[in-house]
């Protein structure tokens, strides 16, 4: 008996009990759909995170105070990263294009009767270039503001919308920590970054931030929360990282462990990649359990089927079916069940991915690898879980099988 005949026969058997076939397949469908959907959603999240980091700006590096180790140990970061560091980097590192010192805190802002706590960022004109922001209306911070500690504020689009509801905010006065600032500009919307709304922020000159608002200065100078730096091009990023590190070590007179951290976009991408990759693997592993359960369901039904069809097996053997014929027949039924469940499950899984993509910022990532994997795995599951029942069937004694009523 050839494969075509066996397949034909299996189709006839499986379609003669549609409810049972459907329910058995359901296990495989759910298993496959969840594996494919989970991998797809995980990869979508991975891609989303990558794109968000790329949207930070081209060729960006970040310098933050504290060593990698210190960042894990302490709640309060040392205030040893100062504006002079940023200035030195800009002046002395050839592979760097722009340097934006940043100093941020959460502060209460009022306008009219409204009150809102939001991110207040003290920075310099270079911020726009480094972080790839655009001004929608008015202007951004300029060098005159820095020199004169002017009390001017540039609003993120979200803040502008919340306080002014479509009216032109330019020239209005808002109060930050009860100090009056004149609004001179509004930024273009940028969207959220890893769940943080980047448009919910107010920008003021770095110097004003230090003198009028927080007043914190470290013994080394005007302390910064971090420095954003753009390298002149992608190829110069490693050089920039090395040169910045060297410069800061010299400036901070470091012999042992660095008291700052230089991170490139790639470093951060790698960390995010590790996290989301782990998450994807976890989701896939959980989903794989349901695939296994589906396989056990197939074995269960095949065993029931063998004992129900004892007479059929006896008859087939009496009219000339060999053990291999019977074995093949039951194996093919099991593989067909699981493969069909795999294919339908793949469809359902892809549907699930598209559905999630439609209602969330996640992108639909249909991975051919995941599909190949799921269908191969479910076929194999059919094979593995089909062997035992099929052997039971093949070994039946035809005399006993025929007599069982």
């Amino acid at each position, binding site marked *: 008996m050839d494969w075509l005949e066996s397949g034909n026969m299996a189709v006839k058997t499986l379609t003669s009990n549609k409810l049972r076939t459907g329910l058995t397949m359901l296990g495989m469908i759910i298993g496959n759909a969840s594996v494919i959907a989970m991998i797809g959603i995980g990869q979508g999240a991975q891609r989303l995170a990558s794109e968000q980091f790329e949207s930070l700006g081209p060729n960006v590096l970040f310098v933050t105070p504290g060593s990698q180790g210190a960042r894990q140990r302490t709640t309060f970061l040392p205030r040893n990263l100062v504006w002079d560091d940023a200035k030195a980097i800009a002046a002395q590192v050839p592979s760097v294009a722009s340097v934006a010192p940043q100093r941020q805190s959460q502060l209460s802002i009022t306008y009219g009767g409204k009150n809102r706590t939001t991110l207040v960022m003290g920075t310099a004109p270079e911020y726009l270039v480094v972080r790839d922001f655009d001004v929608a209306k008015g202007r951004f911070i300029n060098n005159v503001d820095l020199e004169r500690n002017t009390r001017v504020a540039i609003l993120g689009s979200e803040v502008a919308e919340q306080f002014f509801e479509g009216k032109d905010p330019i020239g209005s006065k808002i109060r930050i920590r009860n100090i009056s600032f004149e609004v001179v500009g509004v930024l273009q919307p940028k969207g959220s970054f890893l769940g943080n709304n980047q448009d919910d922020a107010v920008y003021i000159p770095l110097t004003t931030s230090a003198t009028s608002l927080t007043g914190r200065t470290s013994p080394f100078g005007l302390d910064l929360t971090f420095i954003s730096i753009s390298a002149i091009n992608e190829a110069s990023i490693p050089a920039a990282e090395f040169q910045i590190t060297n410069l800061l070590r010299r400036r901070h007179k470091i012999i042992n462990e660095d008291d700052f951290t230089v991170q490139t976009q790639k470093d951060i991408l790698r960390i995010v990649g590790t996290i989301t990759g782990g998450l994807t693997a976890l989701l896939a592993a959980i989903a794989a359990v349901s695939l296994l359960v589906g396989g056990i369901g197939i074995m269960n039904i095949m065993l029931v089927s063998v004992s129900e069809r004892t007479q059929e097996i006896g*008859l087939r*053997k009496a009219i*000339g079916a*060999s053990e291999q014929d019977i074995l093949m027949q039951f194996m093919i039924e099991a593989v067909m069940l699981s493969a069909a469940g795999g294919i339908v499950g793949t469809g359902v899984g892809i549907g699930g991915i598209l559905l999630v993509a439609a209602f969330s910022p996640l992108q639909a990532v249909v991975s051919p690898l995941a599909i190949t994997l799921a269908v191969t795995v479910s076929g194999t599951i059919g094979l593995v879980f089909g062997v035992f029942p099929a052997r039971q069937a093949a070994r039946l004694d035809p*005399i006993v099988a025929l007599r069982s009523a």
Partner: protein
Amino acid sequence: MSTIVQLQSITKVYGIGDIIVNALSGVDLTVNAGEYCSIMGTSGSGKSTMMNIIGCLDRPTAGRYYLDGIEVDTLADNELARIRNQKLGFVFQQFHLLSQLTAWENVMLPMIYAGVPVQERRDRAREALVRVGLEQRLQNKPTQLSGGQQQRVAIARAIVNRPVVLLADEPTGALDSTTTEEILDIFGELNASGMTVVMVTHEADVARRTHRIIWFKDGKVLESNLSPKDVALVSAG
């Protein structure tokens, strides 16, 4: 006249723990081509065991069995399956048709295992069904057929691979008397056209339609060549 079934000192012993049952003890039996014979005997006389051995479903514990000139008692399981497929046709009391298949597909089944090409399979199955008078019922499933019609499908399935001997185990046991006559007519016609038929039955009326009665008792052949008119003797015990 060629010999189809030749049994020499066939013994079959079943051992269940310490209890040993001699189902057959030293049976010699010969069935020639074209014969129409019935095997009779009380239950436990060994006639069913005899049928299983002749049908290559079981192997003798000792003795030799030649079927159509081939010594089959030494063959492996797969070779026995092939012998059953090529040389033997089975008709059972319970018909044993596959319910998900049509009459036509049921009859095609043995040819699938024989590796007959599809078109030939369809033609031969139809031919066999015409022979048992079921040309109108090709596409019916067993549940849509009466008992007699189901048994006729089973007969068509048994003869479709042109076996050397047709084995029937109580073929009329599940049928009423009218249908029994119809089925026996078919066996008669098949035999008249040259088919060797061996039938196990405990009904004297059925045995009377055959040409030779083999009488089993206590695992032995008591009489191997009774004529139909002696059947009263057999039923009397």
